[in-house]
């Protein structure tokens, strides 16, 4: 018989297997994932719209096209950058808080699942990895949607302010004007938004996931949701 057989050490799961499990989980919880992701989407949408708007204004000013418009408000040329830097900082804070909050909720409502997986032999590290993968995907997808919404918002606003001229000087690519700060360009900005959303989501979920993974299964499974 197998009695007195020493207890072996649990193996690590191959990365691909973790990836598959996290994907399946995201697929089934799609509706729920979107709600969680909404915080990220909103934050990034805000950030991207403010930033894009800023770059559009700058690009049009550079081209001299918007001079008539800015001249109406004399203070504008000086005021724009500080105001928008504040807006960008604000939107970043909205991002961080929104994402941290969504991730905390997402982990907390899954305590029971975490406890159950540990009963079945999951290592703490696996639980953490699973959540980081899931939140990374969610962060990226949510941020991409948010970035596109933000871009759309900025374009609509730009059209309203500058009309079709907007498209002649649209700051699609990065630029380094002589008399101004480096311009990221909309393409890089979107990429930046996605990566930022992903990183923030991963950071936001890492602490709650790590804490939940450390709980003894009995305690994790006690939480009724």
């Amino acid at each position, binding site marked *: 018989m197998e009695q007195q057989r020493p207890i072996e*050490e649990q193996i690590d799961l191959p990365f691909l297997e973790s990836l598959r499990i996290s994907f399946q989980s995201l697929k089934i919880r799609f509706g729920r994932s979107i709600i969680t992701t909404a915080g990220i989407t909103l934050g990034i949408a805000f950030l991207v719209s403010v930033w894009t708007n800023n770059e559009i204004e700058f690009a049009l000013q550079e081209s001299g096209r918007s001079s008539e418009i800015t001249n109406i408000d004399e203070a504008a040329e000086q005021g724009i950058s500080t105001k928008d830097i504040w807006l960008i900082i604000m939107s970043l804070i909205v991002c961080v808080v929104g994402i941290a909050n969504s991730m905390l909720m997402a982990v907390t409502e899954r305590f*029971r699942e975490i406890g*159950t997986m540990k009963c079945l*032999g*999951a290592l703490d590290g696996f639980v953490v990895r699973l959540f980081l993968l899931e939140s990374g995907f969610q962060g990226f997808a949510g941020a991409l949607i948010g970035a596109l919404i933000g871009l759309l918002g900025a374009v609509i606003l730009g059209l309203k302010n500058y009309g079709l001229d907007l498209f002649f000087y649209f700051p699609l690519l990065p630029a380094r004007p002589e008399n101004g700060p480096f311009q990221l360009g909309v393409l890089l900005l979107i990429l930046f938004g996605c990566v930022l959303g992903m990183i923030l989501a991963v950071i936001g979920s890492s602490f709650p996931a790590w804490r939940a993974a450390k709980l003894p299964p009995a305690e994790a499974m006690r939480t009724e949701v």
Partner: protein
Amino acid sequence: MPDIVVKTEDVVKEYRMGSNVLRALDGINIEIQRGEYISLMGPSGSGKSTLFNMIGALDRPTAGEVYIDGQNMSHLSQRQIAAFRCHRVGYIFQSYNLLNVRTAHGNVTLPMIFAGIPEKQRNEKAKKLLDKVGLGDRMYHLPDELSGGQRQRVAIARALANDPSIILADEPTANLDTITGREIIDLIKQLNTEQGVTVISATHDLKMLDVSDRIVDIRDGLVERIRNRDEIEIEVGEVGGHE
């Protein structure tokens, strides 16, 4: 020589809530032999689930030792505890505890994924186990699409995935009607007799009595008495008489 699978030595579990200390287990000593079917009985709050958690390495005792297969559980590393839960024990809970994001099949394969069993092999095994519990035609349903009894069957199939030597069941029939509960008990008993799996089950369910080899009565965190099967049968007769 009797082959002891589970042994507890003065197991104490205290829960701290602020300045209050609640002693859920107050020095439990039991020995369970391989192949036994043990029922833990006792009033609500007596400590059955707490003891279940100690034996299953789902929580650590405040004091005392738990030995499984002669191993002192408090000496195991984190990885060994995970492997222990994965290979040695199958858990069945009152509220099923299936993963809602995975199908019946996906629930059964998960412990085998953790055990590193190749995909083809684990798919076959999952199919075999689900057939065995009578869910061959519901394999790819999510738990939400199954009845309570069916969910508990999935949980049983999942508990068997890595051929555990111990099945731990915490009130497996409490959420089920009498007939479904009976079927679940029969299924667990069948594993016990046919495969020699040791079954340790916390229960209020009198139907469990006549399949048990021994009944451990727990009261206020202590073992009140241990009854053998022959003592039990008389009482089951009495219970039947009251109905």
